[in-house]
């Protein structure tokens, strides 16, 4: 069995030759969110911290991949892993991981740095489970050049009004995007779609992220919210079958069916949306704030970088709304070095750390007095903080233990409606039944 002998020898050789790149003798291990600006920023912060921390308090970073991150984390924590002392939490998963974590006491200064509303994104059952590091919300990206041309052209305005009348049964005139209602946005999206208006300079009026994926539901949520929608009312009844959700789901479907969004939108998520918008063939896109860096970078998006504007999501009858969730770091119940971990977390909640984190490229939501100190370097953080404090919201029940499962459920049922596989009534009935079950637990 020559081949086998050879391969076994190879195994032996490999095993002996690869020095295990074991973690150095750092005392605190932190599991972070890999790949994005969050990682770069955390590295910068940790470098600063290690520069002055005692040998035994030094922090070592650990990153898995994003694909299946929360599934993996769940398996790790449920099995009682002690591979890390500090782990990532997100607003929507805090209820799921709280049983395997320990609450922390951040002290009064934390509220001065982040503000109470931001600290809340890391609370469960009234206890603080993490230090908020990054905040995520959505921007309405739009093409300034296209909107300006539309506003300057009377014939185009007439066409716009005609399309709005025909598809939305409303008398609408083009408006500045910062004044948009969702209907104005819809009319604009229809106007700039080839299938509706063959004179449109671009192929699609917008890019809807409609893949059956929980994160896409977060993007969608702000539309029903601005119509007064919520998951539950004060008495704890599930209100997902409200008029607000009906109107919103119908609007998405109307736009998709009319061809205002790419045909494969039902398989679109973050990456596809970025690619579609940056190709210069879409007039608007409701997309994560994290995309701003790429979409306004002339190297990465030469077709649109110079003509892309950013505003908060459009308004509904109840004003504007922007779905926020925070990412943060909290304490693993099975941590080997709790003392060192708490020391690091407390430092992370200080103003010094938050500013280092912001300068390192992260997106912390900071109190106005604090953000002023980095405003010149990070103007987008000002917008982030402004949108978050003015329009930010978290759905009632969206931090419960089953919040992730609720987003999953909505993703499945809503995409089932959008793709024409079930009626709106059925979709909402299924969602309601499922949510009642999930929120009861």
């Amino acid at each position, binding site marked *: 069995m020559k081949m086998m002998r050879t391969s076994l020898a190879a195994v032996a050789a490999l095993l002996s030759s690869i020095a295990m790149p074991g973690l150095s003798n750092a005392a605190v291990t932190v599991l972070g969110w890999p790949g994005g600006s969050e990682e770069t920023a955390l590295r910068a912060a940790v470098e600063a911290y290690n520069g002055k921390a005692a040998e035994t308090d030094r922090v070592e970073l650990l990153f898995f991949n994003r694909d299946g991150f929360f599934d993996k984390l769940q398996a790790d924590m449920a099995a009682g892993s002690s591979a890390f002392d500090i782990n990532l939490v997100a607003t929507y998963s805090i209820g799921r991981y709280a049983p395997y974590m320990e609450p922390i006491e951040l002290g009064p200064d934390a509220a001065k740095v982040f503000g109470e509303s931001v600290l809340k994104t890391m609370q469960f059952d009234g206890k603080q489970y993490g230090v908020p590091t990054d905040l995520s919300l959505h921007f309405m990206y739009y093409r300034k050049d296209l909107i300006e041309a539309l506003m300057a052209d009377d014939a185009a305005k007439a066409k716009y009004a005609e399309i709005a009348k025909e598809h939305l049964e409303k008398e609408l005139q083009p408006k500045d995007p910062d004044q948009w209602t969702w209907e104005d946005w819809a009319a604009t999206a229809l106007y700039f779609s080839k299938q509706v208006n063959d004179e449109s300079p671009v192929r699609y009026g917008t890019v809807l992220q409609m893949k059956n994926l929980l994160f896409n539901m977060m993007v969608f949520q702000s539309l029903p919210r601005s119509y007064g929608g919520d998951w539950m009312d004060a008495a704890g009844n599930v209100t997902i079958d409200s008029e607000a959700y009906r109107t919103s789901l119908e609007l998405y479907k109307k736009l998709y069916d009319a061809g205002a969004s790419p045909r494969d939108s039902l398989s679109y998520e973050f990456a596809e949306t970025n690619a579609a918008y940056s190709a210069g063939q879409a007039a608007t896109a409701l997309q994560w704030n994290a995309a701003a860096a790429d979409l306004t970078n002339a190297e990465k998006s030469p077709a649109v970088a110079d003509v892309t504007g950013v505003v908060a999501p459009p308004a509904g009858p109840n004003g504007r709304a922007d779905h926020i969730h925070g990412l943060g770091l909290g304490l693993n119940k099975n941590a080997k070095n709790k003392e060192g971990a708490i020391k690091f977390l407390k430092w992370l909640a200080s103003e010094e750390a938050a500013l280092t984190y912001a300068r390192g490229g992260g997106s912390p939501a900071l109190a106005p007095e604090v953000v002023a100190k980095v405003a010149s370097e990070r103007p987008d953080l000002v917008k982030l903080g402004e949108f978050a404090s003015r329009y930010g919201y978290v759905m009632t029940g969206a931090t419960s233990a089953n919040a992730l*499962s609720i987003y999953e459920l909505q993703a499945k049922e809503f*995409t089932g409606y959008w793709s024409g596989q079930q009626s709106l009534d059925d979709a909402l009935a299924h969602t309601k039944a499922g949510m009642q079950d999930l929120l009861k637990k």
Partner: protein
Amino acid sequence: MAIVNRAEGRLYFTPLVGFLLLFLGFPAIVNLVYSVSTVNFETLRSPTITGFGNYLSVLGDREFWRSVSFSMRFGIVTALAECLIGLFLAIFLAPLLARRSVLMAPLMLPLMVAPAMVGLMYRLVLHEFAGPVPYYLFEWFGDSPAFLDVNNAFRTLVVVEVLQWTPFAFLLFYMAYVAIPLDVREAAALDGATSFKALWWIELPLMLPTLTIAFFIRFIDGFRVFDNVYALTGSGAGGSTTSLSIYIYHAFFKQGAIGKAVAASVLLFLASLVVLCVLNWLAGLRRR
């Protein structure tokens, strides 16, 4: 006299059986317990045994049957297509390949790419703005279909799977085809059989065991498909591309319904065991 007697046979089985018992026996027992328990991620170490509720809830779940039907259709369609195309290529290209064996290399390449990566690659290939396929379709025909919408997703996924795994069937068939002894072919030629007749009456029957095995392997792989579908469409709009594996994965990780996920897997295991035993029994009958 059997060449390997009973005692020796047992000896030869021991390493494999021991290994499997060690690595799957414990998890299997844990799983069997879970499947009749109320258990979630918080109670992994202390499940409460509550009877067959998990099995009933799986059997009564519309989505379970939908995923079974998806996997069944996917498995049959892809296995059939892969075997037919593979067989055609193996026989049609045999003269070409016999002379220049290096030509095999490009045909085998798709087998070596991770299915999860292939799924990601197609996200690029089929993207309306970043992918070459829609790019050229727009360039040449001014339009491009929606590859991944509800109506086309199944077809697209089948094509993706077939393009990657046809080489597997092809390789097995080609090996079986060239392994047909030369004198059999010569004898057929002497008898004046046309090449088509020789193929149909002599060569194909000789290849039949390989055909059966290839179909079976490809069917199983298609039936439990996960990586590429998950990377490309996830569970699909409204759950329309949920294969049984994806159903189990979702029940397990996303819903935390561990008992249900495990019960579904046990059912799947039993079902395939029955099918396999029946196949084996049929083969036994034919041999007699």
